């Protein structure tokens, strides 16, 4: 399934680009992160706890950052699995300037297996949007902190 959307940040594009790829920022901004380690250049391993309905569980995964084109775009390959199943995602992130702010456009092709897949796009899409929303709020706070 495809998950896509956009989000408006109040901050310059270069700062956003930097924050979105900073392991420390990610570790604190991603919801439910218990562990976030750089295991190779631009490759991270993470343990996340998700507490939502039937996809509740602990997931371990690997994130690889590809095709970095600062400050405009990058690609993420994400693989994660836990008791309720697994996800593989291929995400493309693009940042465009919007006045003094920045618009982030994201588009991900997500493949799920196990309970996650069986529960269908309805639930998976909702959970993804919820988690992504939490992540953006956290990034927004980081932007505010830097600006302050």
């Amino acid at each position, binding site marked *: 399934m495809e998950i896509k959307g956009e989000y408006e940040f109040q901050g310059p594009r270069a700062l956003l680009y930097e924050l979105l790829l900073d392991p420390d920022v990610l570790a604190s901004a991603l919801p439910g992160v218990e562990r976030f380690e750089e295991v190779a250049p631009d490759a991270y391993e993470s343990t996340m706890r998700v507490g939502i309905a039937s996809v509740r569980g602990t997931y371990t995964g690997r994130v690889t950052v590809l095709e970095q084109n600062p400050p405009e775009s990058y690609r993420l390959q994400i693989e994660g699995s836990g*008791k309720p*199943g*697994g996800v593989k995602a291929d995400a493309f992130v693009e940042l465009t300037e919007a006045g003094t702010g920045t618009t982030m456009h994201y588009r991900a092709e997500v*493949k*799920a*297996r*196990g*309970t996650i*897949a*069986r*529960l*269908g*796009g*309805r*639930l998976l899409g909702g959970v993804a949007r919820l988690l992504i929303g939490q992540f953006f709020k956290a990034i927004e706070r980081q932007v505010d902190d830097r600006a302050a």
Partner: protein
Amino acid sequence: MTTVDGPVLPKLIGERVKRREDPRLIQGQATYVDDIKLPGMLHLAFKRSDIAHGVIRSIDTSAAAAMEGVELVITGAELAETLGPMPIGTPFPAPDHYSVATDKVRYVGEPVAVVVAEDRYLARDAADAIEVEYDELPAVVDPEAAMEAGSATLHEGFERNIAVESYWGGTGVNPETAQPEDDSAVDAAFAEADVVVSQRMLNQRLAPNAMEPRGVVAQYEPGREYLTVWSATQNPHILRTLVAAMMGLGEHQVRAVAPEVGGGFGCKINIYGEEYVAAALSRMVKAPVKWIEDRTEAFLTTTHGRDLLGYIDLAAKNDGTILGLKARIIADIGAYEVLLTAMIPTLTGLMMNGVYRLPVVRHELTEVFTNKTPTDAYRGAGRPEGLYFLERAVDMLARELDMDPAELRRKNFIPTDEFPFATQGGLIYDSGNYEPCLDKALDVAGWQEMLAERDAARAEGRIVGVGLSFYVEVCGLGPSAVVPTGGWEHSGVTVERGGKVTATTGASPHGQGNETTFAQMLADHFSIPLEDITILHGDTSVVKQGIGTFGSRSQAVGGAALISAAGKAGDKMKQFAAALLSEHEVAPEDLVFEDGRIQVAGAPEVSKTFAEVADFAYIPVPLPPGMEPGLSEESFFEPENNTYPFGCHISMVEVDRETGEPKLVKMVAVDDCGNVINPLIVDGQVHGGLAQGIGQAMFEEVVYDEDGQPVTASFMDYVMPRAADLPTFELDNTVTPTPVNPLGAKGVGEAGTIGSTPCVVNAAVDALAPFGVTHIEMPLRPERLWRLIQENGGQS
């Protein structure tokens, strides 16, 4: 004047007697498999594949095995040392299929390891703790792509994923080669046709969804070397045979019990890996074990039904005379062949003769493996698919020729004087009388009024259509030549002391109401009250022999065995009665059962009560010469042929112009299942069948994504028909008895499912015909209908 006391017993055959089994079933007083609790019982949970296709690289069971209360964790490879590949019931070539995967997984849900633990929740947690690593392989999801060179393959030795290929048609088939001897007649018929309708149609994959999921309890007693298996199955005797064979035991060492079974619909014919595993693990851990399927497992691992793709061509003259049929059918059978998998789609072509004179047919069938749950019987099992293809095509022909769909069918009916009728596929239709059934349906539905109502609605801008279908199906499955398990049925009838009757039947019911219909038959036969009769079933230690309940065979085959056994017991009882009435010099053949007595026909004063004769049979002093004491007889009944019930269904569908949502506003079913024992139960069977057939037409569909992940594995995403979706059904019947059994009964369990599906789709196509629509794939999703409306700019 008669001097008999008490009321005259009413005859019960043909009466709407309420089901005797229902009070206990609806008051929680019945015993299902999950109600069985044995001392020291352990619980199984299965670790299942969450990928569709892959090689098992490693299985780490250490964390699971270390959990307190876990008795055993075992992988498929380890189990294969004691459990061989599972048997199938068809003659087709099949790849090895182990109860638990040994090296490769081929569908989501396939088990890879098993946990035995002290309680169900612990077992499940331990199964979750098993770590499996796979080398993933490309998933094979589309059956047509699966047959192309270069597709990934599921099984070695099955090139291009093809399991079965068959072909017949023309003027005849050479049985040795299965090739047509002369196929040119088909091409000739199509060449001379004025009109040919052609359509690719999908009869989509369905999940049977019995209200009670599967479950098994197995208890191996080492001291006795005896195994007892309780299972939610439609056929405990077949279970016994196959479990014994898999366990290396004789049938004398195995008892199989189907307690109350909450629906089967064909998916509980197959004997599943979980049943063999439970038996083997009970022996291994020396304790009884239980496994109860949850609903997600039911969606993933209980056999699916249907999933046939048809390329159908129908040729006719301008006056509507059908000249020939071509059908190329591709069956997506999923990852493995289970008990009857490969046989089911072969019924599709056989039944595509329908109720018509078909001068020539060409039938091609390919069964294809894909990375999906295996398919097997589902209510109708091959016939709904065939009748759907045929009745859609006939409807398209009517539209093409601008003929009334009823009159086009009438024109091509097999005439009543041509029965028994040999079809192109080699079936012999036992009896049929189609025109009165069609006329009755048109009358009950008010066909002309429906057409006028439709046209008036259209004039108001509403989207309304009417549909009609006429089916024939094959029921009363037997004789042994055509049923791999044996095509007979068994029954025992014992007249007990005190004049009560206990009967057994091998036709193990799971909703069919045999305890009522069979008791009605015995009540009339012996002229005793219904309450004096008990019907036992489902336990191989009580029911000596049996085949089971499938293919609408309970009444036509099981009922015939019952009445045969009752006849034997009754004859013997009359001999005892004649001995008791010896002062009147009565011959047994002069005696009849009447109002609880055995009396000389027409002379009730010369009689003994039923109870007196029963008591005498067990304490026969003096024992009549040449007789054995007791009144317990049994019978095997093997029919000479199947039965071919038929019927006409008519419906009306309205589609919301703005949302595309279809609403079924009228559903009429006039079915002919021969003689009827209990019209209330027949109505119930038809109601359930209609709901399931309408469910296929309008709501249900198993969907896999391109990776072979099932995305409809809960009732959130798999839409079952609900009461509010259905109109009040209008039912009626005609009666054309069968000559192949003494009851004249044909069977009705699957009828509703077969006629209603094409009927409702025909109505939906009729509704959208003003938009240029000639076919709509099932299910009739609002989105699909809305798009068809929009493609035409929303204008009719």
